[in-house]
């Protein structure tokens, strides 16, 4: 009875939520999602620059396309940050940090570059984001005992990515 009453009030007023957070340890972590997201950010910046040079800023279609590029850039920069945070927060353990003491600084750098990539169209920052996440991927695969290789992405922009040498 009391529960139903409070629940009805909650639906109208929207009480605060407190998380009794659980994490099911699925054990599936992979930095490739973050790498592809970062690469997408660079791609969106290239498309924005291309549109700027060729498009008509008085055209509604121009603004529509620009808006879509910026939205995708925003989403993927945030996605890259999120994916790295999850691996760093949930997977990386003390023994990994002991072996890779620079991982905290690297993650912080990724967060900063991700934010800069959202805030600006600074392509260099986005390229640095890709490289920083590459370095994070190398650390990740090392913790798994998996060797890595570097190869150019087989699509635009053809930046170098770190892949597990499976």
């Amino acid at each position: 009875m009391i529960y139903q009453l409070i629940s009805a009030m909650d639906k109208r007023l929207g009480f605060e939520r407190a998380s009794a957070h659980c994490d099911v340890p699925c054990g599936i972590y992979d930095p490739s999602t973050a790498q592809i997201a970062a690469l997408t950010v660079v791609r969106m910046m290239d498309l924005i620059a291309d549109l700027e040079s060729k498009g008509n800023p008085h055209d509604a279609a121009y603004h529509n396309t620009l808006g879509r590029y910026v939205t995708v850039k925003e989403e993927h920069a945030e996605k890259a940050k999120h994916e790295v945070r999850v691996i760093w927060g949930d997977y990386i353990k003390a023994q990994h940090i002991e072996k890779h003491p620079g991982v905290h600084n690297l993650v912080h750098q990724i967060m900063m570059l991700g934010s800069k990539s959202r805030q600006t169209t600074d392509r260099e920052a986005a390229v640095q984001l890709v490289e920083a996440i590459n370095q994070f991927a190398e650390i990740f695969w090392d913790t798994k005992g998996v060797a890595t290789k570097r190869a150019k992405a087989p699509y635009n922009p053809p930046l170098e990515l770190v892949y597990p040498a499976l």
Partner: protein
Amino acid sequence: MFRLIKVTGESLSPSYREGDYVVVTTIPFLLRRVKAGDRIVFQNELYGLMIKQVKEIDYEEGKVYVVGSHPYSVDSRHFGAIERQDVTGKVIWHIPRRKV
């Protein structure tokens, strides 16, 4: 002075379940008297407002070690002890969705 909060997640199950409500007191006098076994709400940088059970308190260092009852609970075993000043409420009334 009092806040009504809905619980999300299952780390305090089976006692506290997803969808339960709790009334917490935010009176500083009572928060200073939080002890082991109390359920508290607190702010966490990563997860926002959380609810957990106090396992122990280091009064000298001003730290509170919090745990959940579920084996996969994300708590002080993951993010370390929390600061006492981050404790924002103590549960004084539990309103379960289902009878426990």
